[in-house]
């Protein structure tokens, strides 16, 4: 073994496990040690070392009997604390879910468990996945393992910030995330890892704490494209318990990565060139085009005319759905309860104390745009824009196979910045939100470091349920980018 166990990718660890060079217990112990050593990142809300060692031992027994469940068997993973896990505290990083221990397991984590994956803990996130910097968590901000020369603590992105930090810091090789408007892809870019949002409906939402039900989608976070493909194969599949879960087969996504993208048509949307984007992000985007052309793809300019309306559309649709979903937190069945003289007062006191400021803001916006007299002007208008945005993509995909854009308009910023201006924070997701609105699969691949030494990501979008092409193109980008830089906290510089 040339690498430390915690430094292995999922594919490498799977080979080592299969060859008998390493046991899952050894691998899991290394992950737990890394998790303990990196507690200053605040990446985890709950650590589950005993449970992990128990499941790792079971994996080793299975393997000993020649009954390995596949490439995820025995691999330590982290789980975003938005997935309900049976018998393990699940918080959604909100005060209002204080003490909530689900009596059931989400479908995605159950699928991963059936595939043999070993959960080491539940990761920190923005409260109810509402945020782009992991600063709205009731459990405090997560630190990005990457540092710039100024030495200041930076955000890991959000909302899946704890998962991104854990994978980036080599605590584990893979983690689950959820993406509503960019919550897997943007933290992936900020932390220098691969973040992948599948097509809406590819992974079951059952047992995932709901934010915006028509947009939420679980997905994998890992350090390589291949690992993301391996993990998605284990996570995905039709689930009768989620009525929006698609009845499609789950291919072996890793096997679809042939390495050959000759003749692939790559669209480069003019509308994603927005004022104020740093020159180095623009340069990386051009470099990405060149990498794909050098690998045999053809890059063509395309137009997605309604792009600028995607973000305001999202900030009507998502809060509207959130205000409806979050109505269930009433202090009656689970979580926090604050006393009140009447039932109404108990509800209001509980929700007033239990929701943080960003969640409160979105619940109020959502309530307003759904209220009598405003429903048509805001909510229906946004739903119509959603149709137009989805049509833009549909037209573009008649012409191209994938679309290439930057993942985010900046690299990771300093913790505490952009807090007083919600709209400035929302702009983080300007390149990821349009694909979310259209339900399309997208992936962020680490592509370069900016001048301050922080990672930047390139973003690919594909047709619905064409994750195979998405992974194939992302793999080509990954090969060309050859991103080998490591975060400061790992390299020890």
């Amino acid at each position, binding site marked *: 073994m040339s690498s430390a166990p915690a430094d292995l990718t999922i594919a490498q660890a799977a080979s080592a496990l299969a060859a008998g060079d390493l046991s899952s217990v050894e691998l899991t112990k290394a992950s737990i040690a890394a998790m303990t050593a990196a507690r200053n990142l605040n990446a985890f809300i709950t650590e589950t070392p005993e449970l992990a060692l128990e499941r790792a031992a079971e994996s080793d027994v299975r393997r000993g009997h020649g009954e390995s469940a596949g490439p995820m068997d025995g691999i330590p993973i982290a789980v975003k604390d938005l997935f309900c896990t049976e018998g393990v505290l699940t918080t959604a990083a909100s005060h209002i879910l204080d003490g909530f221990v689900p*009596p059931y397991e989400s479908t995605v984590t159950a699928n991963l468990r059936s595939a043999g994956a070993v959960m080491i803990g539940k990761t920190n996130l923005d409260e109810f996945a509402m945020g782009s910097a992991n600063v709205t968590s009731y459990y405090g901000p997560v630190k990005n393992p990457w540092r710039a020369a100024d030495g200041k603590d930076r955000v890991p992105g959000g909302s899946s910030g704890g998962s991104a930090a854990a994978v980036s810091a080599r605590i584990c090789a893979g983690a689950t995330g959820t993406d509503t408007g960019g919550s897997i892809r943007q933290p992936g870019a900020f932390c220098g890892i691969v973040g992948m949002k599948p097509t809406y*409906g590819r992974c079951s939402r059952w047992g995932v704490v709901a934010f915006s039900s028509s947009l939420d989608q679980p997905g994998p976070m890992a350090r390589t494209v291949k690992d993301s493909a391996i993990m998605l194969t284990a996570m995905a599949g039709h689930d009768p318990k989620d009525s929006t879960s*698609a009845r499609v087969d789950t291919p072996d996504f890793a096997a679809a990565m042939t390495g050959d993208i000759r003749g692939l048509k790559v669209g480069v949307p003019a509308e994603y060139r927005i004022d104020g984007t740093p020159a180095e992000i623009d340069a990386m985007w051009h470099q990405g085009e060149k990498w794909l052309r050098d690998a045999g793809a053809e890059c063509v300019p395309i137009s997605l005319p309604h792009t600028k309306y995607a973000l305001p559309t999202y900030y009507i649709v998502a809060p509207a759905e959130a205000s409806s979903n979050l109505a269930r937190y009433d202090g009656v069945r*689970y979580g926090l309860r604050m006393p009140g003289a009447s039932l109404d*007062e108990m509800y209001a006191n509980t929700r007033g104390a239990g929701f943080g400021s960003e969640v409160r803001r979105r619940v109020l916006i959502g*309530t307003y745009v759904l209220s009598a007299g405003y429903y048509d002007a*805001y909510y229906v208008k*946004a739903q*119509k*824009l959603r149709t137009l945005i989805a049509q833009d993509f549909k037209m573009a995909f008649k012409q191209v196979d994938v679309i290439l854009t930057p993942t985010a308009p900046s690299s990771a910023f300093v913790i505490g910045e952009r807090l007083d201006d919600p709209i400035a924070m929302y702009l983080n997701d300007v390149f990821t939100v349009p694909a979310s609105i259209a339900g399309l699969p997208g992936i962020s691949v680490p592509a370069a470091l900016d001048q301050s030494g922080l990672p930047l990501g390139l973003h690919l979008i594909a047709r619905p349920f064409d994750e195979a092409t998405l992974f194939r193109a992302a793999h080509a980008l990954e090969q060309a980018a050859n991103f080998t830089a490591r975060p400061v906290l790992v390299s020890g510089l």
Partner: protein
Amino acid sequence: MALDAATVKRIAFLARVRVPEEDLKGLAGELSNILGWVEQLSEVDTDGVEPMSSVNATILSMRTDVITDGDDLDRVLANAPEREGSFFAVPKVIE
């Protein structure tokens, strides 16, 4: 669309979220900014455009309406902040 403190108070009541009086004015400003920003959607002519509620085009599937679960009182009530016997307990609602 500028919201005043009274409107925020009314929305907060509809959402059953207690907002301290001293927060109302600040929130009115924040929410007004966000609503002003989303106002740009009115530039787009959407006459005759179908509203999209889901990207999922498939028709919801039917299943037989039978009991598949139940008889699990303790697990259902395990997370209750207040429980009385086999019930969730809430403040008195009927005088």
